[in-house]
């Protein structure tokens, strides 16, 4: 039985498309609603980030509900940085009551990167323990063992970064997340396709692709400067020099970036064990419809 459309799509063996939406910085909802309407039909589900990069934004629960109202299926992200096990269980029970089904369990960017570096972090749980606790809720008990008359209905996801170190441990960690309850996995943006292929072949070797739906991340880059930023400033990223050069030499870097992203989407869709793509177009969400059209992956 599927609790969400994303689960239905993945379990039926179809190729899924998900995309990321950054919630607004204020209580203003007009632009979020507008974006939701613009993106309707471009993906099966949409991730609403949880104070991404540790910057304060509208909560992922509230922005997920706004997306639901606009006819999008949300994937609510929930970090371990800002909530203990009490708040986490409370928030997902509330989210389920509001109609949110997909939850992505993540550690979260460290608060020193954001706009409140003085904050105290929580990390009562790590992302694997978060999965354990939330899976337990869906099975009908909270973590203290008390039975729930009506458990939350959740489709649980995890993140995986094939580009962080130590490389071999990344597949082990993916296996741990599957054991802890992950039903789908969204990866860090793939710019280094070769390294991603190595990661996938190790995952397939262990049979993980049969236990969890792996959705590969992509990111459209607008210029070689954006690529260099990803290479030098974003922890846990791998950006090949050829890619930077290709964007640098392009007469229209923006168009080249779109072309490159479409090529990557198609290449990823043919890798064994990849069951979907996840598009992160930071502050460039209006390009998402074009990416799914040109790649032929529009749901």
């Amino acid at each position: 039985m599927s609790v969400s459309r994303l689960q239905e799509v993945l379990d039926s063996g179809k190729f899924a498309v998900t995309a990321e939406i950054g919630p607004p910085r204020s209580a203003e909802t007009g632009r979020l609603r507008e974006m939701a309407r613009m993106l309707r039909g471009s993906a099966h589900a949409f991730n609403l980030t949880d104070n991404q990069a540790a910057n304060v934004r509208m909560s992922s629960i509230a922005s997920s509900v706004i997306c639901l109202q606009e006819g999008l299926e949300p994937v609510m992200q929930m970090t371990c940085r800002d909530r203990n096990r009490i708040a986490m269980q409370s928030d997902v029970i509330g989210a389920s009551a509001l109609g949110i089904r997909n939850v992505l369990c993540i550690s979260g960017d460290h608060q020193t990167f954001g706009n409140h570096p003085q904050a105290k972090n929580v990390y009562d749980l790590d992302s694997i323990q978060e999965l354990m606790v939330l899976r337990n809720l869906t099975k009908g008990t909270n973590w203290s063992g008390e039975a729930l008359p009506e458990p939350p209905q959740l489709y649980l996801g995890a993140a995986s970064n094939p580009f962080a170190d130590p490389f071999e441990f990344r597949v082990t960690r993916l296996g741990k997340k599957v054991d802890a309850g992950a039903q789908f996995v969204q990866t860090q943006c793939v710019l280094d396709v070769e390294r991603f292929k190595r990661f996938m072949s190790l995952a397939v070797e262990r049979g993980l692709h049969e236990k969890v739906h792996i959705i590969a991340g992509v990111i459209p880059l607008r210029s070689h400067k954006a690529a260099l930023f990803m290479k030098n400033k974003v922890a846990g990223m791998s950006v090949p020099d050829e890619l930077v050069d290709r964007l640098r030499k392009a007469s229209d870097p923006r168009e080249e970036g779109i072309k490159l992203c479409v090529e990557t989407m198609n290449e990823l869709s043919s890798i064994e064990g990849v069951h979907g793509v996840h598009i992160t177009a930071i502050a460039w969400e209006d390009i998402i419809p074009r990416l799914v059209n040109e790649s032929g992956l529009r749901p």
Partner: protein
Amino acid sequence: MIIAERKPIPEVLGMLDGSNEILVLGCRSCTAICLVGGEKESRGLCEALALHSELRGKGWKVETVTVERACEKEFLAPLALFKGAVVSMACGVGAQVMQELCPEARVVPGVNTSNMGAPEGMGVFVEKCAGCGDCIIHLTAGICPIARCAKNLLNGPCGGSQNGLCEVSKDTPCAWDQIVRALERQGRLDLLTMNIPPKDWRPSRNGGPRRIVNQEAAPGAAQKEWRGER
């Protein structure tokens, strides 16, 4: 050992307004090894305070004493009931024990107490233990992820670990990278596949201030029983 850093002198001066008699209290234990609160540093601060008093006409009477271990009352006993201002160069524990012994004194901190760690090189001190009260380093190759991972993760490195470094600081090794490599050397990679469940934080600070009673040492029925007394 306990790692501490010096407070800037202007900050200490700001705490001493209105004082007459000032005692700079040094400690020969941890803060002496950190080179911030031993006899030498305490004498140095004492001289600085005296000079400041002279230049600004404060009329302070400043002296210094350095004890063996400021966290134990028996070493502080000769100073009991002191009534002036005390600039504690010991850790926060020593400062508070001194305050308990001298209820009418005004104890001010001369150092910032930071963590439980070890000297790594000349003048470099690194945190090793978070005092969580439930040690699990047998599962993590003798490296504590609670103290040494910026997110105190228990199940492996986050996505920000790269080239052996923590995403939070280029000066900080990723503890989980170290754990993975150490377990590899020890032939215990099997430990990495096991999910460590949510931790019970009650033995840590989250159960409130901790009071540890060693039944074998504390006076009382249990100790008598242990000694075979009736």
